């Protein structure tokens, strides 16, 4: 039987403004996890009942560690950011369907925006063949050096132009015209929508990782919706169970 697990916090430190890296020792999850999956973190605050979904950024199967990178945006993440090394945190996972990696595919394009960048790192590690990485941030970039370990082709855009080109990742894509067979992308919804449309224009396959507010995290409660095509009709799919990674052809962007 699956269950909630207790993870030991090995590291929990700020890596950029309002952005934290957390290393968890939780062998059961590390053993099963694959890139693009997420875990549920439970805060200790009794006023907050629901778990916080956070993507897995890196997996160390040998040590039984997983790394998360998270932004402090509200009560839950703020609470989690105050936990100490050695503390225990309740978690559940790995959850959801991650990215599909095929050995057949040789040209990979990774596109990340903001807090959508971390889930792409473990993916980058595992891909073989050509790979280029396009990352957009509001101001302060994260994880750039980590991506550079796996490819020379890491391109940055920031909204204020402080790092890389001034603008967003779509601008980067349009100026670099990357070639490839498969796009893997995670980031804010407007970015994903633009990526999907760029991919369609250029006839490239794309796997997009979505975010939605969740309750159960395992597909039972139907609160996490992704409007998706369904033959000639459409339906709401579950981001937690059917996703968080969807094919670009599936997603309907009008909501």
């Amino acid at each position: 039987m699956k269950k909630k697990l207790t993870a030991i916090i090995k590291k929990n430190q700020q890596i950029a403004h309002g952005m934290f890296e957390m290393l968890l020792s939780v062998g059961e999850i590390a053993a099963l996890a694959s890139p693009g999956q997420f875990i549920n973190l439970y805060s200790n605050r009794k006023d907050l009942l629901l778990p916080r979904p956070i993507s897995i950024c890196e997996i160390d199967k040998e040590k039984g560690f997983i790394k998360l990178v998270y932004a402090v945006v509200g009560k839950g993440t703020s609470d989690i950011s105050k936990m100490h090394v050695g503390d225990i945190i309740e978690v559940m996972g790995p959850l959801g369907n991650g990215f599909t990696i095929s050995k057949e595919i040789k040209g990979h394009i990774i596109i990340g925006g903001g807090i959508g960048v971390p889930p792409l790192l473990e993916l980058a590690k595992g891909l073989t063949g050509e790979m280029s990485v396009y990352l957009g941030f509001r101001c302060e970039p994260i994880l750039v050096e980590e991506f550079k370990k796996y490819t020379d082709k890491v391109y940055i855009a920031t909204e204020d132009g402080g790092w890389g080109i001034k603008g967003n990742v779509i601008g980067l894509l349009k100026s670099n015209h990357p070639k490839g067979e498969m796009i893997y992308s995670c980031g804010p919804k407007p970015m994903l929508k633009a990526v999907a449309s760029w991919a369609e224009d250029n006839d490239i396959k794309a796997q997009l990782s979505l975010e939605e507010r969740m309750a159960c995290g395992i597909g039972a409660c139907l609160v996490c919706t992704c409007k998706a095509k369904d033959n000639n009709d459409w339906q709401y799919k579950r981001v937690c169970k059917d996703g968080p990674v969807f094919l670009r052809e599936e997603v309907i962007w009008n909501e």
Partner: protein
Amino acid sequence: MNRPGLKVNIAGVELKNPVMTASGTFGSGLEYGEYVDLNKLGGVVTKGVASIPWKGNAGVRVAETYGGMLNSVGLQNPGIEEFIKKDIPFLRKHDTKIVVNIAGKTLEEYCSVVERLAGEDVDLLELNISCPNVKEGGVCFGTDTKMVEYMVKEVKKIAKQPLIVKLTPNVTDIVSIAKAAEAAGADAISLINTLLGMAIDIHKRRPVLGNIVGGLSGPAIKPVALRMVYQAANAVKVPIIGMGGIMTGEDAIEFLLAGATAIAVGTANFVNPRATIDILNGIEDYIIKHKEKDITSIIGSLNK
């Protein structure tokens, strides 16, 4: 030591214990089946199902509140045919009672689901009368005694399984609604469904939920749920299934003492996927600690 008897009887259907799942929080058991041995549950109450597939509401569908949550799923479901094809066979592989929660927008829609289930292997029907009645301008079926009485009477005519009527708490007088349901032939009553609530994102200056309002569940609502179960139990003779914010065995005991014959666990599943089992164990512990013969000597045994 002998384990205490936990069996309870709802309208002639014997549950091995009083712990059920609350409709809509447990799917049809498939997902939580990876976390919980479904054979250990008194019953699985499935997500509300309608005569045809419903798409549900646009997102955002969930908002967290203090000690609770709002949902506005809008009864998304695959329709009764798909349900019969997939969910009943899955659940039947387990030794637990199957309770099918039924949704509709008109009386006819409810009836067509009940009729379709007549020949199917399910143990109990649960009529969710919290749905808006489209013919009556969207007024909730369950808020008017006349409507409740008429509806339950019609459904009873065709129901082949015992009928639980699930009440909405968004009413002035739960007692009169419970009595109306009983008078019309309800075999059991379950309560409470969610309280109508709202949350606002003060940064975006927008309601959090796409649907603006949603249903409040979780421990925040427990005192209201408990009061209604207590009032209803003192007003009707049919068994009551109590729910609303049950997180622990102690919470469940409160409902049993107030007069519920069985209880259902909803939001707690999201906090702890094994909540149903932990609650069951908590109930058993209480009976042992208080040296009771069995569960039935707890039910409704409140000293006033």
